[in-house]
């Protein structure tokens, strides 16, 4: 793990510092406590020392830039260790433009810093501190704190932030809506007012505001189900996001899945022949790049599947951004996007896949790396599945599911007649949005995928 270099708070009331001069260049070795850079604050100019032995891996801010205390400004670690990219880009005139709300200094007016400003330093190793009152209120209102932007120190969600969120979302404490109803006795238990001989329905309808539709009658609670032992697993933000996306997708697109089987003999031969060579280049070859290449070839043949439904019409993309589902184990899954997948060679794709998978597992993907796909690939075969019916990654038109490649006897046609052969076979499942395409186009697409894979050279 590389060590973060954080802009220190150089005094009680000093909230930001200007990077005057980097005393080391990227790639230069540094020793712990050796001066790394010079920082100028309103009050002093001082040196910031290296937090650890190693190599200055990455400088995130150039000289002359003012950043807030607590901001990640550099990384120190072993040579070659991967570090996240810059959180900003350099504009046309050389000015610094934040990518998100990067920690470039706000005007000194003391305006509250944007929520994510301190995130690079504060959020990486876990969530920022949650105060007792915030924890209690979040529990009372059932709030997922990761959805609330914090204005406190280090991006902490303050009580005020939470109150503002509750007001904006018009939340009620869990249980609050039912409590008063329980306290109020049903109409037939209230003292009579001379209406005892009118039909009950009439009395009940007359009691609430007459213009409104009849209010639902409070029924006696159903007999309580027998208690069953259980435990509650708190919902993580990722779990919620997946749940929300899956439900929305199923509600949005009529799903149809078609399954093809593909003889992987030639792909496997190529894979076995080249794996070692790739390894020497530091690239781990998997089957995923083959499927991406086949899918891209089929998308080029049938561009209608490289599309999204919009109200103005079907948006057919001329770029091929392929989402690749990556499992994060129990935590969930994430779909990083390989942009312009059609421009890569097999080795390039293998490298790109390896990069996003590794960073996905280290939670180092940036938000824009997990959006903007035009088609998605999911490899459920890695966990043993033969075939599955994937759910579309919205707003894509289709998703290709890859099963386990497994050897089994198949009937092959030879010049000498039919024969039994042992072949590495795979089931490919394509789920389509039936609003956009029909089964025939889906099958044509799959035939193309099959042709590419079976004819791999």
């Amino acid at each position: 793990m590389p060590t973060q270099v954080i802009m220190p708070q150089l005094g009680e009331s000093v909230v930001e510092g200007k990077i005057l001069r980097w005393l080391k260049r990227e790639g230069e070795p540094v020793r712990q406590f050796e001066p790394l850079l010079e920082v100028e604050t309103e009050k002093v100019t001082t040196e910031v020392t290296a937090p650890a032995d190693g190599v200055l891996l990455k400088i995130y801010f150039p000289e002359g830039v003012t950043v807030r205390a607590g901001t990640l400004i550099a990384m120190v670690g072993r040579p070659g260790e991967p570090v996240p990219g810059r959180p900003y880009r350099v504009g046309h005139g050389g000015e610094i433009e934040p990518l998100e709300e990067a920690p470039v200094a706000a005007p000194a007016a003391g305006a509250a810093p944007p929520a994510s400003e301190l995130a690079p330093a504060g959020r990486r190793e876990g969530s920022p501190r949650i105060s007792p009152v915030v924890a209690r209120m979040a529990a009372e209102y059932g709030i997922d704190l990761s959805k609330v932007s914090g204005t406190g120190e280090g991006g902490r969600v303050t009580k005020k932030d939470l109150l503002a969120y509750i007001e904006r979302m018009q939340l009620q404490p869990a249980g609050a809506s039912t409590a008063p109803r329980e306290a109020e006795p049903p109409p037939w238990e209230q003292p009579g007012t001379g209406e005892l001989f009118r039909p009950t329905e009439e009395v009940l309808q007359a009691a609430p505001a007459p213009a409104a539709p009849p209010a639902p009658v409070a029924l006696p609670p159903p007999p309580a189900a027998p208690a069953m032992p259980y435990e509650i697993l708190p919902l993580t933000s990722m779990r919620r996001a997946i749940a929300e996306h899956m439900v929305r997708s199923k509600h949005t697109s009529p799903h149809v899945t078609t399954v093809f089987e593909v003889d992987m003999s030639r792909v496997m031969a190529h894979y076995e022949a080249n794996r070692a060579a790739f390894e020497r280049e530091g690239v781990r070859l998997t089957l995923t790049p083959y499927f991406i290449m086949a899918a891209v070839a089929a998308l080029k043949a049938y561009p209608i599947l490289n599309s999204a439904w919009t109200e103005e019409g079907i948006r057919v993309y001329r770029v091929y951004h392929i989402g690749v589902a990556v499992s994060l184990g129990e935590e969930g899954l994430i779909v990083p996007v390989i942009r312009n997948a059609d421009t890569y060679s097999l080795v390039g794709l293998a490298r790109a896949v390896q990069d996003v998978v590794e960073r996905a597992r280290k939670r180092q993907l940036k938000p824009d790396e997990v959006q903007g796909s035009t088609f998605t690939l999911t490899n459920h075969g890695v966990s043993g599945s033969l075939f599955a019916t994937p759910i579309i990654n919205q707003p894509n038109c289709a998703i290709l599911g890859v099963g386990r490649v497994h050897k089994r006897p198949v009937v092959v046609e030879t010049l000498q007649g039919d024969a039994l052969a042992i072949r590495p076979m795979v089931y490919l499942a394509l789920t389509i949005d039936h609003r956009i395409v029909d089964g025939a186009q889906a099958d044509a697409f799959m035939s193309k995928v099959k042709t590419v894979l079976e004819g791999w050279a």
Partner: protein
Amino acid sequence: MPEKTLIEAIREAIDEEMARDPRVFVVGEDVGPRGGVFRATMGLWQKYGEWRVIDSPLAELSIVAIGIGAALNGFRPICEIQFADFIHPAFNQIVNEAARFFYRSGGVYNVPMVIRAPYGGGISGGLYHSQSVEAFFAHVPGLKVVVPSDPYDAKGLLKAAVRDPNPVLFFEPKKGYRLIKGEVPDGDYIVPIGPAKVTREGSDLTVFAYGMMHYYALQAAEMVAKEGIDVEVVDLRTLAPVDKATILNSVRKTGKALIVYEDNLTLGYGAEVAAILAEEGFEYLDGPVMRLAGLDVPGVPFSPPMQDFFMPSPQKIAEAIRRLARY
């Protein structure tokens, strides 16, 4: 309502109580013809005579012991300790005798006595004329400890102390004697011992203080109000018994607490407030409970710059408020 200084309000309370109740008398160093070093008893010797305004020897032990004996025999003594710094020789009388009499006698004897003492720094009084001693006594069950911070409360609380059936230590912020002015009605009224007072409503955080520090806390709150920080200020007024309800209610609202006192930080009275908040207000806290207090050094320095370095000031309080508000 006429405006009076803190010391005028205190003198008025003593005067009115002596006029109201012939059992009330004053004993202390230089309280007689001289009227006390701070003029708290000015004119009273002339008005009530030497039997009710008694100049004592320079022996605090005996001032308090006289008070205890008189109280046990039906009088209502007001003992004046010239500076709180000199109360230590009387510590045994206060803690071992006055505080425990009622308990020890199974409720047969009580000690209705007031011990007044000017306390606190900021007047370049040096080590022997600047101390804050409230924490020693607030620690002892059987004693009430009152620290007023404005003239209205000072008069009402001192009258309540004189009429209280228990020994009451009444610590007066001497720097504020003539600095702090406020409207004080003529005639009799009581401010009950016990309740704290919200002296400034706010929503962002609460500053708890008493005595001189409360006066400073109000100034600091005004300073940061211009920056958009909305501070609630609570004047604790009575340190023993402590008003937990007001303390907890305020923090339930604001979620953050800063406690300011000029006594040394460690084990000062603010530590008790912090403990109350930690124990009974935990689920309402939205930030660390902070204390701003005098430094942990053996004495309040004599030299003005060093004294400033030691003492919390409106500026220091404002800075602590900003830090807590940012959290």
